[in-house]
């Protein structure tokens, strides 16, 4: 985190640089089932973050030696587009991206019944088209929906959100400026129905007390995200189902005539 403090990130009325309250999330827009080739896909906009996720599988695994005898192998690639950040990022995977791919996989795998598909691969691709802080969290949120869209059986829907500390105050869902200029950032992924935290990282400095408050704040954020995820899935699939039943009714009435 840089020590540069050119302008204040939070004003005296506790209003943040983008006009949010301390515990307010950025506006979130999610869509599911948007890529025709993928078995499951989803897109999220959270603040200026624009992230796509696609799932292929369960499918045959290549190379074969990666196959697991008792479950499917979840393979995850988190990747940032070269144009997603201010200074062009080399498209080759960086050490940060490799670490994030690992922790995202470990955040999602507890939710999936991988034991249903031994010796197969479930491939998950997360492409960050524009980054604005909190991309791993938005990436997990959107990836969970892509997995659901692919029809992969899951124990719960993983929801993710970050909380942290900026200019001495505890805040929810840090944007890029707050992440870089703040004192601490804690990304969390959570399965609300199982009360299970599947991703937890932190950089920055927090006292024991602050740590508890930030974690609780982040979990509340995850619960809000969870609501949005469920609404998104319902709006796609419940509507589709209703349309189907309506269609059936019509054919019935036609048949009666």
């Amino acid at each position: 985190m840089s020590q540069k403090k050119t302008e204040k990130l939070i004003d005296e009325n506790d209003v943040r640089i983008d006009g949010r309250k301390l515990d307010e999330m950025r506006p979130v827009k999610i869509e599911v089932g948007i890529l025709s080739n993928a078995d499951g896909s989803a897109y999220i906009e959270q603040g200026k973050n624009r992230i796509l996720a696609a799932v292929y599988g369960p499918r045959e695994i290549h190379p074969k030696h990666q196959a697991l005898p008792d479950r499917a192998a979840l393979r995850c690639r988190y990747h940032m587009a070269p144009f997603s950040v201010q200074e062009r990022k080399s498209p080759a995977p960086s050490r940060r991206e490799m670490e994030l791919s690992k922790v995202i996989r470990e955040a999602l795998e507890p939710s999936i019944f991988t034991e249903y598909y031994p010796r197969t691969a479930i491939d998950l691709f997360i492409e960050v088209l524009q980054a604005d802080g909190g991309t791993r969290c938005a990436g997990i949120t959107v990836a969970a929906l892509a997995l659901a869209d692919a029809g992969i059986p899951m124990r719960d829907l993983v929801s993710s959100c970050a909380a942290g500390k900026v200019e001495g105050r505890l805040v929810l869902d840090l944007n890029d400026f707050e992440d870089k200029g703040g004192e601490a950032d804690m990304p969390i992924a959570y399965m609300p129905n199982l009360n299970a935290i599947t991703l937890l990282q932190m950089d920055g400095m927090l006292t024991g007390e602050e740590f508890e408050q930030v974690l609780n704040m982040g979990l509340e954020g995850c619960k809000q995200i969870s609501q949005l995820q469920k609404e998104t899935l319902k709006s796609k699939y419940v509507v589709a189902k209703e349309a189907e039943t309506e269609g059936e009714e019509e054919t019935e009435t036609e048949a009666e005539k």
Partner: protein
Amino acid sequence: MSSIMAAKVRQKRIAQLIARGKRLDGREPNDCREVQIESGLIERAEGSARVRLGRTEVMVGVKIEAGEPFPDTPNEGVLTVNAELVPLASPTFEPGPPDENSIELARVVDRGIRESKAIVTEDLVVEPGKKVFIVFVDVYVLNHDGNLIDASALAALAALMNTKMFNYEVKEGEIKIKPGYKPLPMRNYPIAITFAKIGDKLIVDPWLEEEQVMDARLTMAVEKDGKICAMQKGGYGYFTAQQIFEASKIAQQKAEELRKLVVKE
């Protein structure tokens, strides 16, 4: 233990014992293994240390070279942490470019040092925005018997505290090394404490066979005033918020104990 995978029976035994608050090697749930620290074994390096944590063994060497600062921090030296899982350390390690495990190890060690601002990087500037000193921390795992993160973080801290910065003067933009040394300026001492979750129990400092049984792993780095400065969850399992709060309290206490072994004031 020559076999990598503990036999299934043994794994079951480990899990059963932990459920009753006991461990196969006789430790209490919150006990670390015996720690041995030796500093300054490598004369060619500016700083070095070898840490043994039970049978886990990690060597860290620190080299300092002149280089360019990052554009966003022109008035600070640079910290670079790299980790090598050397093939001689375990039958499961292979030669080749760093895999995700060694990258994660390096980045978690890095996070503890960086976020606690352990090194006074402002004192490593030769010419702001142009020339600074880069501190290379190379973690070399020599024997893998579990909990590489804590052993590596401890060895990195011990090596940094052992690091001698050469005296220099700047003549016509060139760095001229002068005789004599001074210690690398340090202001904080982060200690990493790793927990394994086995069943619904947490244990401190898992050794290899416990790592093979664990559902998930949680590392917390604690700085000198007891603040938490870095955190990383790993593994395919999960934690409850309650378990994490519990772990943070134990980590603060254990870090204090371990720090006394390195920082003698």
